[in-house]
């Protein structure tokens, strides 16, 4: 049976963190829904806190250390992503952005991405729409319609007349992710990299392009 590769990126800083908690809830819900359809999911969690120094080093040296490289490879090979950041100063955290800064520009192209965030107050929920969503749109990911924001209050509240409670929002977003993943089927297994000669434009062609 084919296995869907789901990668969860969490930028929470404390341990345990509510960001990681939200990430796990979203992942569990997606896995459950896919299991109902008989689909198996392999979940890999990337905790950015553990990679913070390597991410900073990558900016300085231009290449990733071993653990960061592993995380980058996992994200690049994923069938779908759940990305969760705390909202700091009206936007994603610097660490969260930095991780996506060191990925290749096309690493997320076409991948379903569920965006989610945590914050101390519900007033920052639209940061998901004005900061996180454009980031992944730029990376040409397929960003799911439902973005999940969990303020401190949400963990104890039940929603109100206008908004579903957190569990239902989690379930709705995970349902969207599951639907996209099952519609796509798992990505083809990684093709061994092409012969080097196939990646290069033949020199005669490069020269010809310059002919006046």
């Amino acid at each position, binding site marked *: 049976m084919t296995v869907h590769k789901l990668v969860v990126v969490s930028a929470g800083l404390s341990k345990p963190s509510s960001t990681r908690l939200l990430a796990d809830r979203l992942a569990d819900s997606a896995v459950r829904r896919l299991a109902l359809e008989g689909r198996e999911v392999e979940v890999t969690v990337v905790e950015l806190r553990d990679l913070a120094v390597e991410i*900073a*080093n990558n*900016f*300085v*040296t*231009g*290449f990733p*250390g*071993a653990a960061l490289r592993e995380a980058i490879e996992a994200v690049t090979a994923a069938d779908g992503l759940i990305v969760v950041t705390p909202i700091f100063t009206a936007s994603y955290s610097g660490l969260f952005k930095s991780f996506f800064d060191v990925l290749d520009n096309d690493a997320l192209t076409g991948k379903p991405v569920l965006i989610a965030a945590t914050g101390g107050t519900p007033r920052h929920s639209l940061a998901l729409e004005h900061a996180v969503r454009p980031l992944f749109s730029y990376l040409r990911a397929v960003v799911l319609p439902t973005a999940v924001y969990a303020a401190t209050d949400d963990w104890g509240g039940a929603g109100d007349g206008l908004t579903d409670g957190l569990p239902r929002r989690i379930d709705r977003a995970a349902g969207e992710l599951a639907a996209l993943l099952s519609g796509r089927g798992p990505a083809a297994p990684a093709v061994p990299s092409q*012969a*080097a*000669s196939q*990646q*290069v*434009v*033949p*020199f*005669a062609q*490069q*020269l010809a*392009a*310059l002919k*006046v």
Partner: protein
Amino acid sequence: MQFGIFSVGDVTTDPTTGRTPTEHERIKAMVAIARKAEEVGLDVFATGEHHNRPFVPSSPTTMLGYIAAQTERIILSTSTTLITTNDPVKIAEDFAMLQHLAEGRVDLMMGRGNTGPVYPWFGKDIRQGIPLAIENYALLHQLWREEVVDWQGRFRTPLQGFTSTPRPLDDVPPFVWHGSIRSPEIAEQAAYYGDGFFANNIFWPKEHFQKLVNLYRERYAHYGHGTPEQAMVGLGGQVFMRKNSQDAVREFRPYFDNAPVYGHGPSLEEFTEQTPLTVGSPQEVIEKTLTFRETFGDYQRQLFLMDHAGLPLKTVLEQLDLLGEEVVPVLREEFAKGRPAAVPEGPTHAALVAARDEEKVEVAAK
């Protein structure tokens, strides 16, 4: 196999004393380093070309011409010559002139430079980096091989019946390397012409450069210049040595921690593990350098970066003594072992002249 050093020519404050050499001191230091390289038996001295501070070597043929007059044996080269922003006509003439003055002890490495702003300083468009490298080199290649050149291209005014002067020494152009850190196009270019390919190999993990070198070797064979093993490969390396490994680490650490390119990042230990940098005893340098052959195959030229990050001249000269006395003789011996006869030696003017003459005889025989 040739061994040598390449200098970036940076003026950097010595982090242990806070002293910054003047431009004049740094320029004279580069000359002293080149002379020392010959004295300790190295084969190559190469200088970078930069047009921005904190670097001094903006005029490589001037510097190399001066060094040529004070040396007898060492090959003078560049690392790199900017093929994008220099007029190829001027490169053709400057290096042919240098070739005559240095009795053929000259080759050069093409590169695109380390900074975007250099393009407008010389009236060029940065967005055209790769096309400039391709067109300019095509013209340079022609200027050195054809006496009278009619030429038209996209990036400079046409030439009608032009002869670049002087002609290359013995009518054999200087050997050309193409240096690249990330562009497969440049590996392809080097392969197309049957020129050398130099992988800087310093700042990044070896797997990255391995891909480029393999591509170059494969394409070199594709274009009929020989087998992949016969392609001309040069590699960079970076070392700091003391008799005792711990002394080397202790002395080099402040320079590493404050180095302009990778300082204030990973630790010295992490960086030496992930990149070709070696800080330790001459024996450790020998061992690490020998692993390059496992990664890249038998190759022709090994250049070390020795004078950077604010290391004082005195220290650099001591480093060169160690390199020349304790490291390179062993490397020559070890690299010669098991080296297939078909793998060419490093390029020299004499060898290029001989190859040209042999070709002439073959053509005459037919």
